[in-house]
């Protein structure tokens, strides 16, 4: 495989093995993503989607395999250094700081030194993009509704001016009407040029918003392809509901 670095290849993960202590959860996952692309990862819960994203973000060490982002090998870099390459994770369950205000949560998104000087500039940008956050800026994040917390978590991710935004289950636990708003927002962010790797259990919406998709099952990529083709594939339904092959 030519090692020549393809300029518009933003993320290249090769044959990743990831484990929590003794329990291996991800087996030989490879995925790649080009600049400006939206790629989604779908599969029933427990398929290893969140673990893969956490490994890409550097929260869990990779036991085997390589991660190359924007041309540099970040495999062994800890999470707080990886974010400097503008690779940002919006974690599952949002993981905001409940007793800090919305503004403080957003500001922390621009914590790494090079971003601090532009923090307030980015803050205004986020407030224009999500006026609801501006209204709630003084409120403690713990008091926000599920949907508002999700927007705030995405806002925090955008504060770091990401090249690639790793979105983990953005619609988890949200009412259907809010789910549509979240996916529209994802479309808007992608249109603004941010590449997105979206992990979602909710297959249909993910297939609509992404160009290509990886289907995962018990820690392995079982299917990979353009999203429109997968929308009609019966395999997706089977992968989900465990119908015997």
């Amino acid at each position, binding site marked *: 495989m030519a090692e020549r670095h393809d300029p518009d290849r933003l993320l290249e993960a090769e044959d990743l093995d990831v484990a929590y202590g*003794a329990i291996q959860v991800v087996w030989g996952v490879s995925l790649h993503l080009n600049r400006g692309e939206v790629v989604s990862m779908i599969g029933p819960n427990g398929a290893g989607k969140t673990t893969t994203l956490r490994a890409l973000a550097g929260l869990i060490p990779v036991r085997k395999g390589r991660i190359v982002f924007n041309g540099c090998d970040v495999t062994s870099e800890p999470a707080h250094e990886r974010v400097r390459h503008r690779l940002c994770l919006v974690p599952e369950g949002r993981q905001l700081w409940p007793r800090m205000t919305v503004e403080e949560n957003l500001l922390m998104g621009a914590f790494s030194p090079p971003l601090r000087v532009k923090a307030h500039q980015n803050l205004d940008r986020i407030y224009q993009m999500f006026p609801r956050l501006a209204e709630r800026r003084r409120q403690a994040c713990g008091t926000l509704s599920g949907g508002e917390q999700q927007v705030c978590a995405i806002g925090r991710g955008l504060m770091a001016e990401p090249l690639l935004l790793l979105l983990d289950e953005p619609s988890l636990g949200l009412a259907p009407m809010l789910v549509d708003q979240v996916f529209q927002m994802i479309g808007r962010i992608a249109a603004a040029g941010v590449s997105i790797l979206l992990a979602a*259990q909710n297959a249909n*919406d993910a297939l609509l918003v992404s160009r290509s998709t990886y289907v995962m099952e018990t820690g392995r990529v079982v299917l990979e392809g353009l999203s429109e083709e997968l929308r009609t594939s019966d395999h997706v339904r089977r992968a*989900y509901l*465990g*119908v015997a092959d």
Partner: protein
Amino acid sequence: MAPILSIDRVTKYFAGLTALKEVSFDLQPGGIYGLIGPNGAGKTTLLSILAGSIQPTSGTVVFQDRNVTGAKSFAMAQAGIVRTHQVPRPFRALSVLENVEVGVRFGRSQGSAGDLWDARRILEWVGIAHLADAPSVTLSVGDQKRLELARALATRPSLLLCDEVCSGLTEPETASVLRLLRKIQDAGTTILYVEHNLKAIMSVSHHVIVMNFGEKLAEGSPEAVQSDPSVIAAYIGRTA
């Protein structure tokens, strides 16, 4: 036939969040029941309540015609309901055999003399007899899961609560654990089985209960549940 377990409107609040809302169902003796639902549906919370690890905010739990609502887990184990843990929790300083002995001596039989279930026999039955004297920390994940089952069986339960016994296992290991569950059921123990791996659960359960957002969404045979539109919507997302 009288149900072995019946729960009525079991509810659980955690600081304003409703983890479980009025969940009711009955389990008939001798069956394998699957408990499924997307992330955050409250499956583990419900299992922890039945095992006594946490206490319900309201609702009743009746086991073998005795009201055991709110009992602590050691009382539940002595009554005959015992759980395994999603992430194995061996007693690290004890050997495999000693781990199982804890179940034998403190479970329902209270280690009464002359009971059939001595520790070595259970290890053979579960298939890790060759590891009896090994320190429990040296076991592979699959074997640690078998130890969890062996320890739970050692208390001679009438109702076994399995918490994701197959997660993190390879295909062959999953298949052998499922065979073991059928063997346990044949020996007369009712099983309530929480699992993400739907293929595993559908193949072994005779009845499936589906949870979503802390409520019971549906209940029925595996085939019925797999074709139920509300279940598909909860899992796969509304069709476009």
